[in-house]
């Protein structure tokens, strides 16, 4: 069953809010899902092929709307920290920041003309 990019953001938000025990692993998962939400929405917005590199999506977005491309780059780096830098502390604040970044990017994309 197909899912939209926005569904990833809903998942990020749910994981974040249900993390009552404030376990870091869920903040990591939330940050990661938040990035993929924005990435998929951006890729769809520009009708890019499935195998388009992440850096290409960011470059195209930056050319169309500078700050939104820069924000996606920021979110990508936070996502990579969350998924790969296991010794680095991923706080609730960072997860919250990722959700806000993702939401902001998706809103901007929805207002952008293709």
């Amino acid at each position, binding site marked *: 069953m197909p899912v939209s990019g926005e569904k990833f953001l809903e998942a990020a938000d749910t994981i974040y809010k249900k993390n009552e025990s404030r376990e870091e692993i869920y903040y990591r998962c939330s940050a990661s899902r938040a990035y993929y939400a924005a990435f998929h929405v951006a890729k769809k917005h520009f009708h890019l092929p499935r195998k388009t*590199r992440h*850096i290409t999506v960011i*470059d195209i977005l*930056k*050319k169309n709307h*500078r*700050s939104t491309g*820069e*924000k996606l*780059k*920021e979110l990508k*780096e936070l996502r*990579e920290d969350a998924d*790969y830098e296991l010794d680095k502390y991923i706080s609730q*604040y*960072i997860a*919250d*920041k990722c959700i*806000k*970044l993702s939401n*902001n990017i998706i809103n901007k994309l929805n207002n952008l003309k293709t």
Partner: protein
Amino acid sequence: MTFSKTSCVDLIPTGLTEKIDELLSIPTAKAGRIFKFTRVPVRINNVNKYADSDDFVSIGDRSKSTTLANIITDTQQQSISPSKLSSLDVEIHPHILDISLKDQLFDVILSDIVQNTKILLQNKQYKFNVRIDFSEDREYPDWNHADVVIQIAEEDYDRVLDLWDEVSTNVEEYFNKTKIDPQDHINADELDRLSDFINIRLITGE
């Protein structure tokens, strides 16, 4: 390259040799400033070169030699183009400084962007700090950027994101204006390359 005391002194205009002798005679602990950047432009036999502080080690210890290197840099401002960027009161990644010394267009554009951004934030009465980082992608290191990192004293991250839009719009307008009104035959492709390379980041005080 290695410089002896004599060859260094030869690089310095008359009148500064006493300053150097004084520098070399003082104890290490009082040797003066420690410089952020060890790569400095020097001019030897009318050829512009770059020297590391290590090149001056034979003169004395490192702090003295970097001080000496800086004196040389200061005295060369008439004969070579110093980095405009280095004159700004911001922390700069050594690799970015290196690029700015070699690429004058990059130096001027990045300096303008930093200055314009500072003015914008000052007008909004924000407390902020600016630094320039060099970032490389983990998977594709060739995808790298000069990051203008603005650390802003604002707790509301949604406001930070709005401010990010304003700063980047300002940067985009600067590039568009420079393209429409080209000075010194600036190549549009070069401007596009720099526009891609320069990246704005707004961070909070975390």
